């Protein structure tokens, strides 16, 4: 089912997003991938504040290619989410409501999604040029020295994603393939 939602999310909306839904996100989301997650995790271990609040927010696992002049961003598709599995449960426990990436998640992440009533979305891997068209503004807000891996604040418009793991723990990667197995 096609759904339209604005980001940051509202907690009460999460239960309405079901595994398999095609969702268009409009609003503010943040990018972070391997190196930024490691830094945020280490900051939490030292009891420091994160550069961005997790509360009701969405993290997009993405490191863009450089923007050509006059454009907000370069190619901007999802990276493999499982590399963030070590760090994701702590962020979900701090109120993170959505993660956008591609590929499987660990049992620990799936449990943390259900525990915190959050959602894991997939964006289409390898569609970075197309997805860049839905990003209207991009600004580095932390860890600038990490280059493509810095944390960016993005303004997105009808950014297309698919619900893979919903707040009830249904997982599209497990259910969808059975229909086409021979």
């Amino acid at each position, binding site marked *: 089912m096609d759904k339209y939602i604005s980001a940051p999310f509202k907690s009460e909306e999460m239960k309405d997003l079901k595994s398999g839904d*095609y969702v268009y996100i409009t609003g503010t989301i943040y990018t972070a991938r391997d*190196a930024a997650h490691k830094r945020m995790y280490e900051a939490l271990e030292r009891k420091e504040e994160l550069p961005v609040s997790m509360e009701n927010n969405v993290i997009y696992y*993405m*490191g*863009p*290619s*450089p*923007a*050509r002049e006059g*454009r907000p961003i*370069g*190619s*901007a*598709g999802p*990276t*493999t989410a*499982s590399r963030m599995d070590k760090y994701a449960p702590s962020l979900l426990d701090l109120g993170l409501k959505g993660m956008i990436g*591609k*590929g*499987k998640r660990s049992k620990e992440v799936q449990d943390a999604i259900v525990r915190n009533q959050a959602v894991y979305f*997939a964006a*289409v*891997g*390898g*569609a*970075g*040029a*197309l997805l*860049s*068209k839905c990003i209207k503004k991009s600004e580095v807000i932390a860890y600038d020295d*990490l*280059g*493509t*891996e810095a944390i960016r604040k993005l303004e997105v418009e009808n950014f*297309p994603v*698919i619900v*893979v793991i919903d707040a009830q723990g249904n997982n*599209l*990667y497990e259910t*969808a*393939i*059975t*229909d*086409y*197995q*021979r």
Partner: protein
Amino acid sequence: MIRTINTDKITETIREMCIEANHFLSKDMDKAMKDAVEKEESPLGKQILCQLQENLQIAGEDMIPICQDTGMAVIFIEVGQDVHVEGGSLEDAINEGVRQGYVEGFLRKSVVGDPLIRENTKDNTPAIIHYSIVSGDKIKITVAPKGFGSENMSRVFMLKPADGIEGVKNAVLTAVKDAGPNACPPMVVGVGIGGTFEKCAIMAKHALTRDMEQRSEIPYVKELEEELLEKINNLGIGPGGLGGRVTALAVNIETYPTHIAGLPVGINICCHVNRHIVRTI
């Protein structure tokens, strides 16, 4: 007769090839992706494949890389033994071409200088270079930027001779099943059978650069390629790993003599952005 080629020519060629490979798929891959739209039975799978068609169009028209992971630059370079390279070191010339291509072409710099210290080299060098010396007076260059979503799902199995062809099939299917959505299907599966530990991996990588429509010239290997493609597509993984009939576009296998005690199998998985272009100087 010795033919002289200046390193400037090599640098310039590689610079252009890095930019071209990241914005335009080769003809064989482009056709394979169009055919996939027709073949796919799953509505969501078809929708994803259509988005990938649109993505390719935007990439070419607006010069935005097809995928933000513009890869580590893998380069196969076949140097004719009658070529004399002048103007400096060949390796420096290749890396300079990669540096210029990635910096001037707005490509992502995805290389860290040390695997554990992990500081970005900021120009995507060094490249991964596979040299071979061949007959003739030309230099043939293949540039194949490799993304790591699929690279991370690649495997080497040191099978026993007794495992035989069934062992090889199981190894390939295991790798593809484990890769699932992580490798951005529909994928291309490069396989190297035989040789040594490193030889099978390099063959698997090289197999990815083969024309998608070209099957092995060895009859039993051709059959194996076709059988594995069918078995992989029967896994139901589909585009994006969200279910469907098109999980792989091709299985390309290379073989090589091996030791009496071994049966090495390398499986290099590539996403649908299987970039490979060739130029001869």
